[in-house]
């Protein structure tokens, strides 16, 4: 880690007076003179420079020069003219510059968070190393406020960029800094400048990814910034009662997805423009698997095929990929019904006691179909079509909500053999595994890589990391079962 020269605040404020009054070229020249003076003597006459005593090695002068040159080079490519007339930046161009500078600072400076929290470091960059860039970056709005140069920890031009890169860096992604260009200026502020939220990367990263995936493409949401503000309010409320760091990445993604859905619902915006995308919700699938038996699985498979026939592009792919999970789950239940007809308490685990008797009876009835008629359910066979379930989507008669708002599934009209049924139910742990699997299948990397673009593609890559871990869990569980 490197320790950077720190400019004392009072001296920074004095330097800024001159920087604010000069033209861009004059400020550039003044900065260069200050920096050269610093390089010659490791000090600037009359200017207070200090270093943190411990925590790394002092940055060499050539390192400082490299950082300076790298940022200047980006600026020059976008119209900065140190000795002539610089091009004025539009709002969009300023955003692009910010993202490029943020990455450059983060990759080159090599500083700890402790050092990056020291105001003097950023005052040195703003007042000595690169004052011309500050003057240029904010020239569009007139003369930049003093705190864009000085060690203001919220407004310093370079401080805020370094911290954005640090907090929004997505290590799972092929382009780890993608969020800096995908999120707008105000959206980044919402995530990064709220102290209690900023540090919770376990929640912030999936929320940011999903915001880009689900909200950004929505033309029907005019004020997306309002959605972001409402979303971050909900995130802050949950931060006090949920330990996101103890959840798996998949659980955090599901939680972030739930928060976005709740936000949209709270703002009376339809949850999604693509109802088919609902099938990829892990929480929804977990509920599905844990409350249903084979008959309901057949319903889902049927629904799937119907929806897939209507869907286009990636939506179609997603739906088709749920097929193997449904088939495997079917196979699992069939094997179990044949192999272990003994009654067990598995149903207790998936149908909570406080739920209505009707639900539990339905669950038994659903499972009974599996136990009593394994042959039609064998792997590879097309699921039987059940009355009244052919083309229903989420929210239709195939499911309803109980008074607590929990989704349940409508009963099927079949005969019951309860004794054989119970052993054919999924346990809670199995259901969770199946839900994960289903989610992963939907996001299957190899298939989607060829067909997806942009945010979808990034999400797929991020989820792919979970794939191997899931199959390890599944293998371990199956070994125990045997």
């Amino acid at each position, binding site marked *: *880690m490197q320790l950077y020269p720190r400019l*004392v*605040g*009072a*001296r920074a404020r004095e330097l800024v007076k001159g920087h604010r009054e000069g033209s861009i070229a004059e400020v550039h020249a003044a900065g260069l003179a200050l920096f050269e003076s610093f390089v010659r003597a490791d000090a600037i006459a*009359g*200017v*207070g420079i*200090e270093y943190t005593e*411990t*925590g*790394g090695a002092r940055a060499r002068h050539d390192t400082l020069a490299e950082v300076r040159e790298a940022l200047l080079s980006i600026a020059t490519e976008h119209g900065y003219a140190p000795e002539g007339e610089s091009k004025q930046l539009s709002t969009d161009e300023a955003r692009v510059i910010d993202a490029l500078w943020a990455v450059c600072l983060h990759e080159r400076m090599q500083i*700890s*968070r*402790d*050092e990056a*929290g*020291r*105001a003097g470091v950023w005052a040195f960059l703003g007042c000595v190393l690169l004052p011309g860039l500050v003057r240029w970056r904010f020239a569009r709005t007139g003369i930049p406020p003093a*705190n864009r140069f000085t*060690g*203001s*920890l*919220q407004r310093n031009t370079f401080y805020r960029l370094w*911290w954005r890169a640090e*907090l929004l860096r997505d290590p799972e992604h092929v382009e780890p800094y993608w969020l800096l260009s995908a999120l707008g200026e105000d959206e980044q502020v919402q995530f990064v400048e709220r*102290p*209690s939220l*900023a*540090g*919770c*990367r*376990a929640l912030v990263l999936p929320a940011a990814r999903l915001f880009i995936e689900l909200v950004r493409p929505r033309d029907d949401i005019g004020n997306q910034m309002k959605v972001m503000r409402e979303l971050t309010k909900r995130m*802050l*409320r*949950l*931060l*006090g*009662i*949920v*330990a*996101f*760091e*103890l*959840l798996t990445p998949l*659980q955090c993604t599901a*939680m972030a997805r739930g928060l976005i859905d709740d936000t949209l619902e709270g703002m009376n915006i339809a949850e999604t423009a693509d109802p088919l995308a609902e099938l990829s919700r892990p*929480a929804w699938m*977990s509920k599905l698997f844990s409350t249903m038996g084979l008959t309901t699985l057949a319903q889902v498979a049927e629904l799937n095929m119907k929806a897939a026939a209507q869907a286009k592009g990636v939506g179609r792919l997603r739906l088709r990929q749920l097929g193997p999970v449904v088939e495997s789950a079917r196979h699992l239940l069939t094997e179990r019904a044949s192999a272990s007809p003994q009654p067990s308490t598995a149903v207790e685990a998936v149908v*909570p*006691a*406080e*739920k209505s008797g009707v639900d539990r009876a339905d669950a038994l009835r659903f499972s009974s179909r599996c136990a009593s008629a394994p042959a039609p359910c064998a792997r590879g066979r097309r699921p039987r079509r059940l009355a009244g379930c052919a083309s229903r989507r989420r929210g239709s008669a195939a499911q309803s909500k109980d008074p*607590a*708002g*929990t989704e349940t599934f409508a009963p099927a009209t079949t005969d019951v053999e309860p004794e054989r049924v119970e052993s054919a139910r999924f346990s*809670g742990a199995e259901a*969770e595994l199946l839900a994960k699997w289903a989610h992963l299948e939907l996001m299957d990397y190899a298939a989607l890589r060829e067909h997806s673009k942009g945010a979808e593609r990034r999400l797929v890559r991020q989820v792919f990391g979970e794939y191997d871990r899931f199959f390890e869990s599944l293998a371990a569980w199956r070994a125990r079962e045997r």
Partner: protein
Amino acid sequence: MSIDTPPYRMANDGRLVGDPWRRRGGAGESGGILEALADWDPSEDLVFARTVQFDAAGVREDTGLPTGWPLKLGVVWRSADARSRGAGNVVLVEGDRVDEELHVSIQGTQLSSSVELITLVTLGMPIDKAPIRAWRAGSILWQDAQSIDLSGGSRFPMQSIPFSGWAWPAGAIWRLEWDASELDVAVLGSLCVYLNQDHPLHAALVGRANEPQAHAIRAAMYHDIARQLIRGALDSDEFQADRKYPARSIGRTIQGLINSAFRGVGLEHLRQEMRQSPEVFEARLQDRLRLFEGVG
């Protein structure tokens, strides 16, 4: 924490007991409660551990969860100044009682002036909604926190420099550097007391001399720092008594100063007095901050 009281039942305090946190493999390794690491350096990673006895059945009973419902026992760390958080080991608990060693390893580059170690019991998997019962996976059912100071113990960051070399008034003995408009930022890194090493009384400020004169000079400096912070905050409309500033931030530090000096007095009352009767306010500051107490 943005919500202090969760909308569900928490477990009783005694459901988890254990040893205090200890540092592994460092000079701070000891059997007592670990409150500070004076010798820590950001290039050094930290490992902490503690052993706990956890009454999982009791937690389920307190919080209305079914017998055997999975819980998670784990540790989360936070460093507010560095805006970083992370987790140590996590144990899924399905039995009734557990003895477990919790441990956490933290990269030094992720830390700043303090770290908080939070032992947590959370809901292991989601459950159906029921009145005043936690239902989300990860919902916190029990917690305790231990804060460890990494700042080296200084009350305020201080640095000795020659004021003449920086074109500061050469006869001044100290100077407080801070920005009253930035109350959310950490004290360490954004506030500094500069001591003039050219001043003949400099040695009295930095040394450990116990002479009455040295004592009086230090008392005057601490009073002046507190006075400048309080006056600066009262002058700023951004400072609010009930706002939740981050731990170890300038805002939180000043709230603490004002609460201890003027307990029960409203902020607006203080602002009014400072503006309308500055001489009375100054005298009150001397009184409440106990200027020169114990000197002479």
